[in-house]
């Protein structure tokens, strides 16, 4: 079951088209997944792996990045990966053909919302068990799907936060060590002064002693 499909521009995470599964069961809260998907689109960048799967509870986000556009679908965990990526590939081919050139110029979110119609049709063919069997042959070529990295969506969404936490910790550490160093220096000088003072006292005492006792 494909619940949610989003097509977004990689450069700035601008959503270009989307389709939400609409039936009576959509009573389940898609809202949260939608906002996760939006965040995800923003996090992804050109360095992200071209294909990845992200776990989000009992759902999987399947993510395909091609030609500066990210294709994201939310499926139930039981939905075959092969099918999901075949579906995304399909969308990519069609979307790129229709709108590929315009992708970089649009500024409005969901500029290609009309692509929804196509998405829904495709979705139907992939979700329908009978047609799915027919697609099986095509999908054999997608063996490499097995190698796709699977990560937890929480990790992806929070990776940045973890890094920044590390960063703050490190900078805290460095400031602390700096402080330690200056403190140490200060202590050193203090002890040196003390030594000098002690020597001076001894010396003066000696002079006085010589002055009054020897003369």
């Amino acid at each position, binding site marked *: 079951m494909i619940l949610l499909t*989003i097509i977004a521009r990689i450069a700035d995470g*601008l*959503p270009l*088209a*989307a*389709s*939400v599964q*609409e*039936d*009576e069961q*959509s009573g389940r809260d*898609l*809202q949260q997944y*939608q906002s996760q998907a*939006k965040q995800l689109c923003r996090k992804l960048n050109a360095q992200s792996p071209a294909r990845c799967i992200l776990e989000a509870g009992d759902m999987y986000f399947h993510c395909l990045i091609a030609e500066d556009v990210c294709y994201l679908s939310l499926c139930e965990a039981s939905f075959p990966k092969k099918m999901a990526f075949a579906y995304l590939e399909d969308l990519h081919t069609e979307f790129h053909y229709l709108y590929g050139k315009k992708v970089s110029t649009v*500024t*409005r*979110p*969901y500029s290609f*919302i*009309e692509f*929804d*119609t196509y998405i829904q049709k495709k979705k*139907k063919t992939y979700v329908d068990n009978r047609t799915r069997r027919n697609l099986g042959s095509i999908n054999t070529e997608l063996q490499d799907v097995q190698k796709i990295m699977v990560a937890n969506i929480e990790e992806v969404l929070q990776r940045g936060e973890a890094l920044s936490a590390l960063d703050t910790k490190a900078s805290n550490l460095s400031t602390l060590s700096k402080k330690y160093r200056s403190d140490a220096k200060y202590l050193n000088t203090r002890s040196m002064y003390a030594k000098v003072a002690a020597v001076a006292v001894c010396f003066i005492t000696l002079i006085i002693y010589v002055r009054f006792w020897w003369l």
Partner: protein
Amino acid sequence: MWASGREDRAMSAPGFTNLNSSSSSSQDSTPNGGAAPLYQNGPAQTYPYMHTPSGYYGAPPQQQSYPTIPAHSTPAPNKAPIMNRSHSANYYQNNQQHPLPQHHVASSAYSAPPSSAPPSQPYTTLHYSAPPPSNAQFNQQSFQQQNPPYATPGSYCGQQSYHTPPAQHSQQQQQQPSLVPAPAGGPGAPLYPIVSYPSAPRSSHYGTLSSYQSASTLGVLPTQTGAPLHQYSTPRSASTQPGHSVAPSSQPTVNGSTAAQAIVPRHYDQSHQASLSYDSYSGASHSSGGADADRPPSGTPSASVHSSPGHHQGGDTSSSTTGSASPVLNSFDSLEGGSFPDSLPPSSDMTNQAQPYSSYSYPSMQPAYQQRPSSHTESSPSHNQYGQPGYQQYSQPFPSLSQLSAALGGLSGVPELEVEALRPVNLLQERNLLPPRPLEAPEPNLSPDLKKVNCSPQTFRCTLSSIPQTQALLNKARLPLGLLLHPFRDLQQLPVITSNTIVRCRSCRTYINPFITFLDQRRWKCNLCYRVNDVPDEFMYNPVTRSYGEPHKRPEVQNATVEFIASSDYMLRPPQPAVYLFVLDVSHNAVEAGYLKFFCESLLENLDKLPGDTRTRVGFLTFDNTIHFYNLQEGLSQPQMLVVSDIDDVFIPSHDSLMVNLKESKELVQDLLTSLPTMFSQNRETHSALGPALQAAFKLMSPTGGRVTVFQTQLPSLGAGMLQSREDPNQRSSTKGVQHLGPATDFYKKLALDCSGQQIGVDLFLLSSQYADLASLACISKYSAGSIFYYPSFHYIHNPAQLEKFQKDLERYLTRKIGFEAVMRIRCTKGLSIHTFHGNFFVRSTDLLSLANVNPDSAFAVQMSIEDSLADTSLACFQAALLYTSSKGKRRIRVHTLCLPVVNQLSDVYAGADVQAITCLLANMAIDRSISSSLSDARDALVNAVVDLVTAYKSSVSNLQQSGLVVPAALRLFPLYILALLKQKALRTGTSTRLDERVFAMCEFKTQPLQQLMRIVHPDLYRLDNMSEQGALHLNNTVVPQPPLLHLSAERLSRDGAFLMDCGDAFYLWIGKCCNEMFIRDVLGCPSYASVPPNMSHIPELETPLSERVRAFFDWLQDNRAFSSTIHVVKDDASAKATFFQNLVEDRSESASSYSEFLQHVQLQVSK
């Protein structure tokens, strides 16, 4: 004097001025349009006419005003605006170069009349003016000279007032009352010193008017009309300075000029840093008076409009004669003080052209020109000119004047505007209250730049265009404070802004708007909560001018109505497609009524015009005692009908094939629509399971949201939501309370709230001949932001008029714009709070209106209270933001911002009262009251509103010891409108009214936009058989005559005439028994009265000039309303005339009192 000095400087270099003027004209266009063209270049989606929008909202009026003046000089009607300017420029030059001659002319005009003693001096003064140093100039100089001799405080006041606005107010007010009594004593005595200034310009206008009248057949017009004008004009001039009638003329100009200059410099300085001294501005505005806003309503912003005023004036010049006609004494005369006879005669003598100049405050224009070049702000010029015209509007009580104003259209604005609005009117004595043209919204008393950008009154109106400072003051005024909105109105031009960041206040989330203040380049101050916000970098770039660092030139800050393309932050889900579901009653009753065939035809015709894109989805559902679904899945050879007979637990038989993509399944849809009417033609099932059908519709639509259109022809009798008949026909005309105005069950309300939550709007078409309990059914639309249509006694054969209306409504309904999943929020300046909303919507949180669907024909009203004193601010602002998804899947935010002055004087509150808005708001409140309490309570409350107003005005503002009913002129129509309200179907008692019709009328009151509502409450009555060319509008090469409005009383009808009543949703053309044969032949195409068919409902297209004129007038009336109105030709002897006469609200009806009786009743109450 400061101002005068400036003028001199400006004047000193004539050549220079000329240049300026010419340049100014060019500039004119640029500022207005400046934004526009740029826009086009600009990035994303902007409507082609950016510049027009500005014009639309106010810029155009300025231009128009220009033309008017030139027109006088050279009465060439259809000049392009530029031409006009050039004229004016020439005029200007002439003045400077040959100051003397022109002045002479003017003077001569006056002199002729002077025969009467008092005027003589004025003329002389005019002559003076010529000699003076800078002489060239206009009246201003003359004015200056005059001042010393006259030493009239008023003139000084005027000037001073500019400098210190507040002072002006107070002065004016004070003077007014004090003066008033004096005039009463003797005609010559100055009634309104201040007013007098304007009088001069008016007088010229009058002249024009009078000509108009004269040209038109005098016989047609009531004699009174002519007289009043005279009085009006003359008294005014006289009043200013008794001795010197002429003086006023010069003075007005002075006012204008000074105001303009005063403004200009400031403006200049401030222009970069927005709002500075509002105070100073306001002062200026006072002096200058009304603004541009009125103009826009006229419709076509462009050249055509310009031409029209010019035309009028041309007519005017000749017309002055009427003015000369001796005053027919009205109550008015006595009030105003005598009119000066002398002034009148001159006008008649004058050659048309000459007079206009002399009398006219052309000077005002010129100053504008001069200044204009120096300061690039356009405001100043518009200011001056406007002021005077605005004046006219207010003068409306005098018929003649009214005509004038009509000619000038909506031009408005003058310092005296306020004074005029405050003029006490004794309703028991004055009978001619109606303006010649339908009333325009009053001008808020703002500085010209603010006025220029302010929101159109058609979109956003406040009952009080001057907001009282405290709740105590508001209570004292006894007027309701509220807003009337028409937020999704069809607009011809609208700036659309695409940007990544939509600039909003960080604390109150107000959208940036023209009334905020830029503290510097990087910071702006919110005008609602006064928080200082940063200007984002992106905002520094102006896409219109493609320049950087001019945040104040951004379109958001230049237009009070803008639309933003929302970013994805404003979306909870991807924008939904347009989804339409039609739920059709096919029971036996429906088949009998025969609507189905016409619905299918209409939908077939408009299938391609349904708003939407390639995602648009449609579905159909029919019901009688079962529910029928239609599978229209692409690929089927023909539609499949799926019948669900289990109406207790409705389920959806198939999930994805019932709502289908319109584009892909178009053939199937067409197939279905052609076969539907015959499919059920033999249906004998009489029950109606509306409730279950609606439940099914809800289930079908809930995944996407969208629009459900329900057609119902009888009382639902099966399943959930079943209703019983509650109407007792014997009680229809009872004068006691009316029962059952509320819903019988909350089923429909609950379902509507569910729908609203799923973004489903339900529109109801009720075509019922029997009682169908609309009070209950309407809830389904009320809470889901739908609209309601009701066709009582609909039958496709027996009631062709309803059928035609149904077809026309349906066409509009199917093709009009629609917004989905919308929310609207109204914000207002800190201190004001909104506490009640009227309209169809669901209030989701305290101030968030949830609108599942929003359509361009529904309006909203809100009531406000003043929680904190507004003493620390001079402006109050209101912002309505409507976030919606267009039918093309674009998420957009439409933002309207209205700015109004805050006043601390009761008289100012009255001066700014908007009688139409007040009436509409009271109507809404009365409907609420009648449902929550009782009808009689609501009626009493309405009468009390009038009584309270009269009492409050008597005790606080007017210190006239006059007996009778005295109200400020701005509210002179208030009792009339209230009486009309009481006679509406919704609120009347004693007359037989079906419950459904009453409830429907109530629904209409809640949702109709103000203009439409006012036409329903108080229809416009015109006489058509003797329309003249005078004062006609020239639009796109057609001449649209502008007959004057008539009072809604049978005494205004005559058997030899043909009268048109414009009731908003219908036109009634009443043909008198002895109507001119020519009219019947040329317009109706019938040889004689007897041969006019009884049920004629169209005007044949004949080639005669009269027919063309009448049709042009009809088209013009039709032009700016959404639903096309049907025309009923009513013969005097036809039975249909009852409806016509029912609308004559000033007359006594079987159960309701006449206007004069009503007034007496009010007076009785007041004196208690």
